[in-house]
C-alpha cells in the first residue's frame, strides 16, 4: 500500500477527519511507510533541528540530540531525559482522590481506599500527559520503552553505562 496523501495524514493527526474517512483508513491495507511519513510531517510542523525518532504518545517525542543522546521531549520544548527512563520521573504529579468533586461527581467517584487518579503534567506547558488509575503507593507505570532497530539494547546499555 503506497503512502496516503500528506494532507490526509495531517488531518488525521489534527482530528479533522470524518468518521467515514477514518473508517476508510481503518479498512485499507496498512500503508507501510506511515511511521516515516508521520515523522516527516511532525518534523516539519515542529521545526526542530534535532531529528524526531519516534512519536511516543500525545505531546511527547523521542529526539536525537547533536551529541547522539536520545531524549523524550514535549512539543513545547520541555525535556524529560533519556528515553530509557520513565519520562514520568521528570513530570509534575497531582494525586486526586476524588473528594474535590472536580472531575467525577457523586457515586461516580471511586472509593480512594481502592482507586485514585494520578495526573502527570508537563512542567513546561502543563499539558495533561497521562492519568494513571492506581491504588495509593503504586509505582509509576513505565508505559513504553521503545526498541530502536539501529541500537541493540545490550550494546546501548553498555555504551551509556545504564
Amino acid at each position, binding site marked *: 500500500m503506497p503512502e496516503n496523501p500528506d494532507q490526509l495524514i495531517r488531518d488525521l493527526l489534527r482530528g479533522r477527519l470524518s468518521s467515514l474517512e*477514518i473508517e476508510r483508513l481503518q479498512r485499507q491495507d496498512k500503508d507501510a511507510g506511515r*511511521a516515516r511519513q508521520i515523522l516527516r510531517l511532525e518534523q516539519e510542523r515542529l521545526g526542530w533541528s534535532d531529528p524526531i525518532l519516534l512519536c511516543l504518545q500525545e505531546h511527547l517525542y523521542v529526539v536525537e540530540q547533536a551529541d547522539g543522546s536520545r531524549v523524550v521531549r514535549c512539543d513545547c520544548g520541555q525535556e524529560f531525559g533519556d528515553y530509557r527512563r520513565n519520562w514520568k520521573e521528570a513530570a*509534575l504529579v497531582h494525586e486526586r482522590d476524588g473528594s474535590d468533586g472536580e472531575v467525577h461527581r457523586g457515586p461516580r467517584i471511586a472509593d480512594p481506599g481502592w*482507586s485514585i487518579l494520578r495526573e502527570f503534567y508537563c512542567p513546561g506547558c502543563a499539558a*495533561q500527559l497521562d492519568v494513571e488509575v492506581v491504588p495509593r503507593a503504586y509505582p509509576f507505570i513505565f508505559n513504553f520503552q521503545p526498541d530502536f532497530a539501529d541500537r541493540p539494547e545490550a550494546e546501548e546499555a553498555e555504551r551509556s553505562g545504564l
Partner: protein
Amino acid sequence: MTPLQEQLRERDRRVTELGRYEEKLELKEGDPIRFELLYSKIVQSVTSAHEVARLVSASPMSRELGEIIFGLYTPEGDAVALSRGLLIHVHTMSRMIKWMIEQGYEDDPGFAEGDYYFNNDPYIGGAHCPDQMIVTPIWWEGDLVGWAGGLTHTPETGGSEPGGFIPFARSRFDEGLFLPCVKVAENDRVKRDLEVLVERGIRSPIFWLTDNRAKITGAQIIRTEVKGLIQQFGVDFFGKACREYIEDTRLAAQQRIRKVLHPGVYREVGWRGSVMPGSETLLHGPVAMTVTREGRLVFDYEGLSPAGKHPFQGTLPTIEGLVMNVAIQHLFYDLKHNEGVLLAVDLKVPEGSAGNPPSIFYPTALWGITYGVGLASGQAISRAYYANGYREEVHATSALSSAYTAGGLDQYGRPFGAHNFEFAAAGLFGTAVMDGLDTAGVEFNPEGEMGDAEIWEQILPPMYLAREIHTDGGGYGKYRGGNGVQSLYLVWGTKDIEIGGFGAAPIYSAPGLMGGYPAGALYMWVGSRTNIRQLIAEGQPIPSGEGEDPASPDFVRMVEGRWELIPGHNRIGRPAREGDLFTAMTGDGGGFGDPIERDPALVRRDLENLVTTPWTARHVYCVAIDPESLEVNQEETERLRQARREERKRTAVPAQEYKARQREVLLQNDLAKPTARMYHGVLGSSEAFRRAFAEFWELPDGWQMNDPDGESEEVA
C-alpha cells in the same frame, strides 16, 4: 494411546520443532483460487449455522444479542474457521476437544457420528458457567476428519443466585450446574434424561434447553455442509487445506505484527476487585507486552494477583480467550480467525494467580481481573500502533460489564431466573481521532446489541421506566469515551422476586489513555417502599432518568422511598415488592487525551444531544458556553483553559517530591485494607514485582508490607 492422542502428540511436535503449523503451503501456492474457494465455503457453513441457530433458541442472548458463535475444528481440535459473534471463544472449543482426546474419550465413551458433547466447565474451556458449548465429530469413510461446534452464553445456570453472574460466589459450587464434557445427544437425538436434569436443576430451563437445540442444529449444519465440501474437493485436499489455513494465519499474523507495531516493551495495568464482605481486595492485573523485531508478540502477566475465594478471576482458557479476542479485534481483524492467531502470540500467566487458579474449586463467574488484563493488553497494542503512526487504531479502555439479576416467579406465575444483558451495548473507548461511540458494544463481543426493552420485559418482570444514555458516563478527554446505558426499572406483576446486581469493585471503571480520564465507578440505586404508584395515580411527574447531577439523581429527588446506593454495582439478591424502583447501568468507555484540548464544537454538540452537562462543559472541558444559545465564547474559553494550566502548575508537585511523600505513606503502612491486601498478596507471590516495587520506592532491606488481616487478628 488412541489414534487421536497420537495425532495430537504429532501436531504438538510439529509446532514445537518446526515453529510452524504446516511445513509448506503447497495448496495455497499451487492453486490459490481453489484454496480460497474452499475457505469461503467453510466460512459460509459456520455463518449459516450461526444465523439459523439463533432463530432456534428462545434465549434473547442468542436471538437478539448475538452471544453465540460456531466453528470448524481439525481432528486434533484446532480452530480452522469461526463464524461472527462471540469472538472471545476463538479458543474455548479447541481446549474442550483436546481435553476429551487427552482423557481418552475416543475409547470411552467414544466419538460416534451423531454424538454431541456439552461443556461449560471453564477449567476445560470457556470463561464461566453460562458459557456453554457443544461439539460433534465429523466422520468420512471411517476417519474422523474434523469437529463442528457452537457456543452460547445462557442467562441462567442454577447457581446460588439467579442469572449466572454471581458476585458473591465463594466456590465453584455456588455457580450452578456444570456439565464437563458430557454427552447430551446420541444419533442426533437429545437425551431426555439430560433435559430432565436441566428442567429440575436451573430456574429458567427454556433458555438452556433451546440454546442446546440451537447448538445441535448449528453443528449439524456445519457437519452436513462439510461433508458436501469433502465430496466436492476430496478428503485429502480438505484435510491439508485446513492445516494450511492455520499456518497461513500464523504467517499473516506475524507479518502484521512486524508491519504495524513498533518493537519495544509496553506496560499497562488493569484493576478489578473482590467485594466479599470482610475480605475486600483490590486485584492487580499488570501486562508487559513485548513486540520483537521478528514480529512476535509476548504478553507476560507476572505480578497478577493470587487466586482467591471470589468470582472476580478467570481460568487459563479465559485469559487466552480474552487476549486473543483483543488481538483479533484490534490487530488481526481481517485475517482468517483460527488457531494460527494463537500460534503468533506467547502468553505467560503465573500459576496460582487469578488468571490461572490452583484448583478447579476457585469460582470464576465474573472473570474480573482476567478481563482487566485483556483490556490492558489492548491499551498496550494501542501504544504500539501510535508509535508507528496508525492513529486510527489507537484507543483507550473498553467498558466494564454490569447489570441486574432477578429470580422468583415471573408475571405469568412461572419460576424464572436471569440477568439483563444490555451491557452488550456499553460505551466504547475514546480513540486518538474521534470520540467513543455511545451505547455501541463491548470488547468481548464486537457485534453485541442491547436487545429491545420489550424482550427483556418478557423474560424479566421489572418494567422499564427509563432507558437513557448515561450522561457524561464516558471518560473525559480530547476525545471522550462513549457513554453507556442507564435504566430505571419498576418492580411489577409479581409478589415473589429478588433483585441483585453485579459489576466491579468501587474503582474507576475504564482507564483513559495519554491524558484522558477514566470512566467513573459503577453504581446501582435501589428504592424500596416508594410512592411511585401514588405519583402515577395522581398524574404527578415521574422520573425519566438520572438528570444532570449524579450526586442528586432525579429519581431520588422525585420519588419518596428508602433509597440505597450500591457502589460498584454488586448486590446480593434481596426480595423486592411491587412499586420498588432500581437502576442498573452498563459501563462507559475511557477517554483519550487532555480534556482541555477538546474542540469546543464537540462540547457544544454533546450539550445539544444532552449527553453532557453545562457543569462538565465548564469545569472539565473549560469551555465557556451560553446556556441558552449554546454559543461558545472563544476568548473566555481560552482564558478558562489558561487558568486551568496555571492551576495545574500550582497544585502539582515535581515527581521526585511526590515520590518522597508517598514513600512515607508506604513506610507507615498507612493504606486502606483493599489496597493493603492487594500489595500483601502480590508482593508475597511475585518476586519480580517485589524487586521492582522495592527498587522504585527505595525501600530499606527487610521492609515488609504488613498483613492487614494479621493485624486485625492481633487487635481482636
